[in-house]
């Protein structure tokens, strides 16, 4: 490109980079200081290395600075960078969700800021200008806002401003009925299903950490028996009846502890659970000690997940999660909107997010069983080889043949997993059920799919089967064991729906 086209970053950014480099230099310099303290010219060496390093940092950040340009186009921002590897990134204004200006301490002292253009792309790092002057940052933010509004008709404000200054009447109204809430009794029932023995893992972990202060070896059963005998009990003298009773008591206490842990954890997390439908979106409040209050815009919902468990399914308990363009919290992709509810309670919540619950006539179909069989068969040699080795080279004898049950059990699990995997497709949505121990149903609106990949490994190719992987913002959906022809037909059909609507329109409020 011609020199001079576009804008450069602020020169003082070099100073910020240098200071950042200095911070990395502290520990190596201390190490060198120790290493050279016996030498006469040690300090001279130290200063020399520091100057050399700073010089290098400055030189390379200067080089990067000279090769960095950002260009404000009519429809896009273009960022060109790279010393050897040249990168030219084009970010259409239409896609920019948010322009953030971040000012850390040192840039703030110099009147600089880091401008980030957020587009909702999958990896987070979208477009960063480090550093420009604060005025330039404000100018860019205004500019993006203007260009976006120029291209898009401004959506009507959700709450009209009145002339007399009372901005929001609704604020003074009593809070409306929640979309979903859980009372104490519900949370108690929920807690019973959240049976957890995690406490033992924690205790064991703690004991392992502080083993050195324990008076005996944790793994020495003899020592444990010793403790019992020290308190005046002779283990050999205990009758079988008492032993069985003891074992039962131990089991019962284990179960009791598991239930108590589940109850405690559930109450801490879910106490006062309440989901509201506000003009801004879904608002979820919950928690006993740490109360959280999350708002998720309804149009950002990308898919719904209905999850249940092996036992709770018998009583009709399900959890509803929304997969969302997780702008609010980067670590949590899907938001729980109803952790423990019956289907009649869940379906209306789903409808609020413009997702239609599945119906009976939707036609769920199983996938090709050979896809599952091949996976099992591939693992078989790895399981059989050690068994054969044991049988031949050791004298464990016929008892070892019991290990042969393992592949049989594995086959049972594979079969169960195949039986519970089903897909369905209607005009607007994609449905996928999976899992037999904790069954899960994913409902994805077709227009919210970002990309479709069909992939095949060598064995699948001989079978004529393929896996379809759908790119969903904030979640993943892949369905294996579909005949190639059908996969192509499904993709064709979905794409024709998808291309009709632009991303910005799908995810606009």
């Amino acid at each position, binding site marked *: 490109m011609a020199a001079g086209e576009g804008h450069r970053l602020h020169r003082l950014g070099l100073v910020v980079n240098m200071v950042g480099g200095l911070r990395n230099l502290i520990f190596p310099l201390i190490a060198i200081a120790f290493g050279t303290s016996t030498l006469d010219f040690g300090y001279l060496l130290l200063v020399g290395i520091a100057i050399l390093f700073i010089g290098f940092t400055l030189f390379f950040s200067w080089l990067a600075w000279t090769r960095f340009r950002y260009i404000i186009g009519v*429809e*896009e921002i273009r960022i060109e960078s*790279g010393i*050897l*590897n*040249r*990168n030219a*990134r*084009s*970010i*259409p204004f*239409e*896609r920019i969700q948010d322009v953030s200006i971040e000012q850390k301490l040192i840039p703030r002292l110099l009147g600089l800021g880091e401008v980030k253009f957020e*587009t*909702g*792309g*999958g990896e987070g790092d*979208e*477009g960063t200008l480090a550093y420009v002057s604060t005025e330039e940052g404000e100018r860019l933010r205004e500019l993006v806002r203007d260009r976006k509004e120029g*291209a*898009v008709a401004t959506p009507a404000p959700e709450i009209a401003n009145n002339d007399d200054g009372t901005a929001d009447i609704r604020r003074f109204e009593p809070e409306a009925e929640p979309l979903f809430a859980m009372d104490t009794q519900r949370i108690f029932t929920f807690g019973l299903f959240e049976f957890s023995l995690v406490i033992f893992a924690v205790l064991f972990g703690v004991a392992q950490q502080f083993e050195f202060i324990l008076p005996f070896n944790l793994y020495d059963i003899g020592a444990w028996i010793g403790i019992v005998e020290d308190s005046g009990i002779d283990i050999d003298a205990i009758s079988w009846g008492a032993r069985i009773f003891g074992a039962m008591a131990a089991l019962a206490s284990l179960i009791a502890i598991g239930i108590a842990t589940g109850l405690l954890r559930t109450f801490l997390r879910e106490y006062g659970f309440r989901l509201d439908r506000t003009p801004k979106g879904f608002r979820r409040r919950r928690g006993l000690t740490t109360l959280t209050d999350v708002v998720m815009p309804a149009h950002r919902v990308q898919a719904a997940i209905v999850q249940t468990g092996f036992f709770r399914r018998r009583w009709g308990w399900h959890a509803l999660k929304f997969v969302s363009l997780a702008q609010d919290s980067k670590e949590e*992709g899907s938001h729980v909107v109803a952790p423990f509810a019956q289907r009649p309670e869940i379906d209306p919540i789903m409808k609020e997010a413009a997702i239609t619950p599945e119906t009976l006539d939707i036609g769920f179909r199983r996938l090709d069983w050979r896809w599952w069989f091949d996976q099992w068969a591939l693992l078989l040699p790895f399981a059989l080889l050690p068994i054969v080795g044991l049988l031949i080279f050791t004298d464990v004898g016929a008892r070892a043949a019991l290990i042969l049950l393992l592949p049989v059990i594995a086959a049972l699990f594979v079969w169960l997993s195949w039986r519970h995997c089903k897909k369905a497709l209607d005009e607007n949505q994609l449905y996928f059920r999976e899992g037999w121990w904790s069954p899960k149903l994913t409902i994805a609106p077709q227009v919210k*799919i*970002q*990309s*479709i*990949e*069909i*992939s*095949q*490994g*060598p064995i699948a*190719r*001989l079978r*004529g089967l*393929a896996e379809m*992987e*759908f*790119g*969903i*913002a*904030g*979640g993943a*959906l892949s369905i294996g064991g579909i*005949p*190639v*022809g*059908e996969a*192509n*037909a499904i*993709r*064709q059909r979905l*794409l024709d729906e*998808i*291309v009709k*609507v*632009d*991303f*910005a*329109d799908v995810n606009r409020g």
Partner: protein
Amino acid sequence: MTDCAGFTPTAPLAIEEMDVNYKGFGAINCLVSAIQQRHISNMDEATETEELTRLHPDHVKVTRIVASLFMLVLIIPAIIAETAAYLNQESGPPNGVFIIPVLLIAAFFVLFMPWRRYIHRGFHMSADRIRIVRGYLFRSDTIVPFGRIQHIDVDQGPIQRRYDLATLTVHTAGNHNSTVSLPGLLHEDAIAMREEIRAHIKRDAI
């Protein structure tokens, strides 16, 4: 060629390429076409019928140069070991116990793999979507609608620049396939493709 259309439209192109340039790979050629023949018979219901575009031929050179740079890590120690062994042995020519296996491995990764990757990679850009097909043993066929593209990169590495090639990368909001890249395009083609996609995003939004 139409009967091969579908999931692996690169297949017929691939066999042609081998006939013309790589007669030495006759045995592999037969194997490939045998597997593909079987594969094609499964393809009756396939619906994607458009022709795929190959990458620029110079892309093979670029990937070969990159691969040989990596192979130097193996070759240089092998030469040293070979020399040391030669100096220590009493008579005779160098026996090649180090250098021959390493050269075979290098030949596989430098000569064979870039070529095989190249012949199985193709793309197609239609009015509203881009399709990228790649892989031989493990195949993938990805379509990204323009309406779902967040932003677009055109990258050029130092070796690519020598051949005036570039890599086009499109980013989506999906967690899977959040970046889909297409190397081995002429730089001006990559720029033109970028402009076309960008224009489409703009047009959609109005």
